[in-house]
Structures are given as C-alpha cells and as structure tokens.
C-alpha cells in the first residue's frame, strides 16, 4: 500500500490585516491535495496564488482557517512529525553571523542527527551542494546562490523522507538553477518525496511527476504532467505536399493557420478538422508527409488555466 507523505483536505486560509484586523484577504480556499511517497510534486501558480501559504501551513508557520493538513498522517503541529521533513523557505535567511558549517550543524542538532555524526554529516551535505570550500566563511559574506546551497544542505542534513522547497530556483542564475534541479533529481533517486512550489514552468516540466496549478487560492488543474499535456492538445500540425493553399481552403474546412514552406504547406487545425482534412487531401491527390499533435507546453496550459479561472488580480482575493 502506498503511504501518503502529505494530505491536504479543504485547506483554507484567510488573513486578517490592518490595525483592527478588519480587512480580510483570502489566500487559499478548499485545497485538496495528496502527495504519495517518492513523488516530485510541483505547485504552480502566479504570485499570490496561495502556493507559499500552503507550504507555510504544512510547515506550521501559518495556521489554517479551516481544513486539515497531514504529514505522514499527523498534523503539522506534531513536533516529532516535522523531523521527517526538510524545508527551504522562499529567499532563505540563515543566521548571517554563523558560518555555513555552524548553521548546518545547528540544523543537524535540531533535526536529531546523532551527536557523534553531526560534524561529519554536516560537512558531507555541504560538500554535496558544492559548499565544502566556503563552509567556514560567515554567511553574511555569501552570495544568493551560496545561501540557497546552504539552505538546501540544512534541509537534508537529517535525511528526511520529505523535502519541501518554496521557490527554490527563484532569483538564481542559470548555474544556480541547474544545481537546484540536479539536487532535486538526486533526492528523487534516493526515494525522497519532494514538494516544491514555483512559477518557473520549465522547472516543473523538467522535474515533476505531478503538478497542481493554483490560481487565487483555488486549485484549477491537477494531475500527472504528461497526462495534462496530452489531454490538453488543442490542434494537429500537418505538412501537405502536392496542393496549393487556395485548393486546400476550397475544401471548406476551418483551418487555424496555413503557411507556405517552399513546395509544402504547414497547416494547423483542430483535431476533428484535421482528421477530415486528411481524407480530402488524399482524395484530391495530395500527400501528407507529416502529421503530429501541435506542441503544447505547460506554459500554455498554465495560461489557459489562468484565463479560465477569470482571476486577473494578484495577491489573493480581497474580501
């Protein structure tokens, strides 16, 4: 039986703002989510979609207004359950008066690493994220990329089975982003469950097994990345030879796009139209040299989900 690492049921959060706490901002509403062990799960959404709020509820940094969150079957308030989780917040801020080594050692003590192993394990994880040589520099001297590496090291020093990363690649240069992606893939190999939220779509496409798209606190899409992309293919792309563009149009089909490529025609049409068009082209003596689903990326799916949700605002729904 598969054990779920994380379960969210009807999770909602409304922030109360202002001096009299009279202004309310709905950050999350009725979120259901289940993450199985060993999955790499992406939470995708624009700014203010509720991704960070979800993660903060799971990490016991914010209290849910209603609904439940369970980590390995227990609530996030259960201190011992959090021993099984490694967490990197958005824009991590480790104690800058400490050195990288001291900070990771502090995390190891708090994470319950056996005392005799703290020094060795800390150095091991620092080296695994490429921070071995800078381990004894004070964190105040680190660049953003180095801070992110130390934050990743402190999250895995106690070998947790679940890693939660809030915008792990945001603000990093290509080298830093590559490092974080390699780190996640390495953790996946170990069997670690990874939940990360981001608005960087290529990261989700490259890393995630499943993805949930959040828009203004609502889940608008959820599923396996491959399934979502296949199910959402909107059009077919055909390359036709032996017919002119005018002849093709005379068939009376609704074509999204027709482009002349020297002696060939590149045609884009809805799936049903494309199937009927094939028969007409062959009947008219033409030749289909290629037919494939039009390229559909997660970005298009994301934008489609955004427009369907009809929520153009950013920062949660203000009540």
């Amino acid at each position, binding site marked *: 039986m598969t054990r779920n690492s994380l379960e969210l049921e009807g999770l909602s959060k409304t922030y109360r703002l202002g001096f009299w706490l009279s202004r309310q901002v709905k950050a999350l509403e009725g979120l259901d989510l289940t993450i199985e062990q060993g999955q790499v799960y992406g939470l995708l959404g624009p700014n203010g979609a509720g991704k960070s709020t979800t993660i903060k509820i799971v990490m016991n*940094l*914010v*209290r849910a207004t209603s609904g439940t969150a369970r980590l390995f079957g227990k609530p996030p308030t259960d201190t011992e359950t*959090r021993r099984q989780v490694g967490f990197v917040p958005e824009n991590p801020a480790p104690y800058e008066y400490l050195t990288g080594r001291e900070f990771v050692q502090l995390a190891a*003590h708090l994470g319950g690493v056996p005392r005799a192993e703290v020094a060795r394990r800390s150095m091991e994880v620092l080296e695994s994220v490429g921070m071995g040589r800078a381990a004894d520099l004070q964190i105040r001297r680190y660049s953003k990329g180095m801070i992110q590496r130390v934050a990743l090291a402190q999250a895995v020093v106690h070998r947790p089975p679940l890693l939660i990363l809030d915008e792990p690649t945001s603000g990093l240069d290509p080298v830093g982003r590559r490092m974080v992606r390699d780190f996640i893939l390495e953790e996946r190999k170990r069997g670690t469950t990874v939940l990360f939220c981001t608005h960087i779509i290529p990261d989700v496409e490259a890393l995630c097994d499943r993805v949930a798209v959040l828009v203004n606190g609502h889940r608008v899409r959820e599923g396996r990345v491959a399934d979502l992309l296949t199910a959402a293919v909107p059009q077919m792309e055909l390359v036709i030879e032996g017919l002119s563009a005018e002849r093709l149009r005379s068939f009376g089909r609704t074509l999204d796009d027709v482009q002349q490529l020297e002696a060939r025609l590149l045609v884009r049409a809805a799936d049903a139209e494309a199937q009927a068009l094939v028969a007409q082209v062959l009947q008219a003596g033409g030749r289909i040299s290629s037919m494939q689903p039009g390229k559909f990326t997660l970005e298009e799916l994301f934008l489609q989900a955004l427009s369907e949700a009809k929520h153009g605002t950013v920062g949660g729904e203000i009540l």
Partner: protein
Amino acid sequence: MIRSFWAIAFNGFREARRNRVTLVLAFFAGLLLLSASLITDITIATFDRVLIDIGLGGMSLILVLLAIFLSSSLLSREIERRTIFMVVSKPVSRGMFLVARLAGNMLTLTVLQVLMCALLLLEFWSLRTPITTPTLLAMGMLWFELLLLSSLGFLMSSFAGSMTSAFVTVSMFFVGHLSGDIYQLAQRSKNVALKMLGTTLYYVLPNLERFNLRGQASYGIVVPARELLSSAVYGLAYSAILIWLAALVFGRRDFR
C-alpha cells in the same frame, strides 16, 4: 528536546558574542568600572561608599541597557528577517524556541555580569575598599532584575516591533523603580478611585526596587535572608508569568 534547547540557547549566546553592539557596550562597561576610581578622587572621607555606588550603578546601567537591547529586538528581528522560518519548522515547539532564546540571552547577560563583577571586585581589592556581604548581595540581586526585564522584552517582541518593545521595556524599567512611590502617593490621595488605581498599579507593575540593594551595599546594611528569598521568588514568578504570556502569543502567531 534538551539537546535542541541547548543548541538554540548556545546559538543565542554566540549571536550576542558576535554582535558589535554587545562588544561595544561590554568595552564601555569595562572603561566605566575602571574609571570609577578616578571619579572618587573628588572625595576623601566617603571614598569607599562612592566607589561602591558608582561601580554598582555603572554595572547595573550597562547590564539593564543590554538586557533591554537584546530582548526587545530578538523575536521581532527573527520574524522580520525571516530567520525564524528555518528554526521553527524544525522539530522544535514554539514555546521551547522562545524559552531557549531567552536562556541564550540570560547566558550572555550572566557571563557579562560575572565578568563585570570580577572586574569591580578586583578594583575594590586593589583600592583597599572592603568587599562586604551587602555588596555581593547587591550584585546577585541585579540578576533577577535582568531576568524580569528580559522576559518583559521578550513578551513585547513576541507581538510588537523592536522600537515599540524597547520603548515599553524602558518605560517599565522606570515605572518599575517608581511603583513604590506611585503607591505611596496614591495612598495619600483622598480620591478613592485614585487610591485604587495606585494600589492596582503597584500590584500589577513589576516592583524593580525589590532587586535594588545598592543603597544597602553603600551603607553596609545586610538584608535579611527572608527578604532576599522573597524578592528572588517574586522575580522568578513574575518572569515565569511574562514568559508564559509570551509563549501564548508567540504560539498563535502566523509567520507570513
């Protein structure tokens, strides 16, 4: 759990040790204590009394300032800088985090107090000023005042910003030393409401004068053990209530 507690407490001590403000204040404390002997040049007859007065007063002032500075900005700074995210998300309860941070603060203040006391006693010894029991007791009772002020600073910084926390804690320091006078004044009033207000304030506000034995030290008056014990219990109990309130507030906070 105990290991996590000490890890956070020692980290707090390390933070204070690497903080420039703490180092500068400690340096000035040293200078102030050493310069006490220069000030006493103006007097001949009451040399010992003035030296004890200035020495203990200077030490008390520096340590109280440090206690307020360290405690009133600690939690709010952790929240503002978001350093708290990577600690509170660990298998550590918020209450334990708070108490461990306070323990780290008190460890810093205790180490500084011990060093200042040693420096002051060395100065007394070198200037042949008698080291008496009242002097040692005055030094010891200061610790309870530091604990109470630190707990108050923690309570304030569990929900307010650094400036507000510091302002309220400083105000409470002055009010706490004047609460006896407020009570006396209220008792002389013919207005019943004012009398009640004065009495309520006296019992609700911390009475920091209970920990001030500098006068007794100057005049060599030994305070009875029962009074000392009662003041120590008062300090511990008052601090415990403040810490409990701070834990209550801190435990319910959202860290956005």
